[in-house]
C-alpha cells in the first residue's frame, strides 16, 4: 500500500529537523497517527530501516502513538471514542441518539525525535 511513500515523507521531515538541530544521529522517531489512517506499523518500520540507510537516521526506532477516532454528540455536547473497525454503528453512548459528527482522528504527523 502507501507505506513506502509515507515513510519517504517521514524520513524527509526527520532529516530536515535533525540537520536543523545539528544532530549526528537520530535515535527515536515519535509519530502521532489518528485512527482514521490505515498504516501498517510493521511495514513503516521496515521501510524506514531500508530508506534510512546511510543517513543520520539509520537504525532509528519508530514509535507510533495511535490517537482515537472521536465523535461529538450534538444534543449532549459530549465526545466519545469509536473503534470503527469493530463498530457497525455508533450512536451516542450517553443518549443513544444519532446526531453525532467526527471531531478528530486524522492526525498524521511527526511529533518529536530523539537525537544525539
Amino acid at each position, binding site marked *: 500500500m502507501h507505506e513506502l*511513500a509515507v515513510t519517504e515523507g517521514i524520513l524527509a521531515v526527520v532529516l530536515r529537523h535533525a540537520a536543523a538541530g545539528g544532530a549526528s544521529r537520530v535515535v527515536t522517531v515519535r509519530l502521532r497517527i489518528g485512527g482514521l489512517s*490505515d498504516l501498517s506499523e510493521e511495514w513503516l518500520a521496515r521501510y524506514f530501516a531500508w530508506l534510512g540507510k546511510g543517513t543520520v537516521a539509520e537504525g532509528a526506532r519508530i514509535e507510533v502513538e495511535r490517537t482515537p477516532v472521536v465523535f461529538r454528540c450534538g444534543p449532549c455536547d459530549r465526545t466519545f471514542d469509536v473503534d470503527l473497525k469493530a*463498530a457497525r*454503528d455508533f450512536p451516542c453512548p450517553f443518549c443513544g441518539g444519532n446526531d453525532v459528527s*467526527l471531531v478528530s482522528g486524522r492526525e498524521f504527523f511527526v511529533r518529536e525525535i530523539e537525537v544525539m
Partner: protein
Amino acid sequence: MENIRLIEVREEILSDNRDLAREIRETLCRKGVFLLNLMSSPGAGKTSLLIRTLRALREAFRIAVIEGDIDSMVDAEKVAAEGVPAVQIRTGSACHLDAPMVEKALGELDLDHTDLVLMENVGNLVCPAEFDTGDTRKAMILSVPEGDDKPLKYPLMFSICHAVVVNKMDCLPMFDFDLEVFRERVRKLNPGAEIFPLSCKTGEGMDRWIAWLEKAIAESRSR
C-alpha cells in the same frame, strides 16, 4: 557517550506533498481550471462516470482527462475515443496519485485553453485519501455491490470527499444495500458531503451530479 536530546517536530508527515498540492490548486484557480479528483475501488465506475460526465459537459466546457488508473489501457482507449486531450500517468507500482505526478501531467495539457480536467485516480479507497493532488474538488464513487458498510472500513476517504457518488443503483434490487443507513454513516463522518445515487448504465440520477459539478465550477470561478 553523547547525551540524547529531544527535538520537538510537530510537522505533518506529507507536508511536502501538501505544499505542492496547495501550489497546484492556486495555479489552477488563477488559470480558471477546475480539477476533479475521482476516486473509488477498482470497478466501481470511475471511467464510466468520467465518460458520462464528459459527454454531458463537453458543449459547455473545454475538457481534458488525466488517466491515472494502473491497469487502464482500456480506459485510455475509451477516453481517446471521445476525442478530448488526455494524459496517461504511468504510476508504475504506486497505489495513488500524488501532487508531483499531477503537476507533471498538468504540464502536458494546454491549461490556457482548458476549463475542466477530469482525473481518474488509482483504484483504491485507502492510499489516495492520504495524498492531496491539488484538485479543486474530491469525489468518490461507491458502487452498490460493495455494500453500505464501506464508510466504516474506509472512513478517511469518506471524510475528505466533497461528493460521494453511489453508482450502479440499477443493481439495488439484487443487493441488501440500505441507502438510508449509508447516508447516516457518511453524514456522521462528513456532514458537508453531498450524496448522489445514480447509475452510469441507465443514466438515472445523472442530472443531479452534473448540476452539482456545474455549480462547483461556477463557484470556483467566482472566487
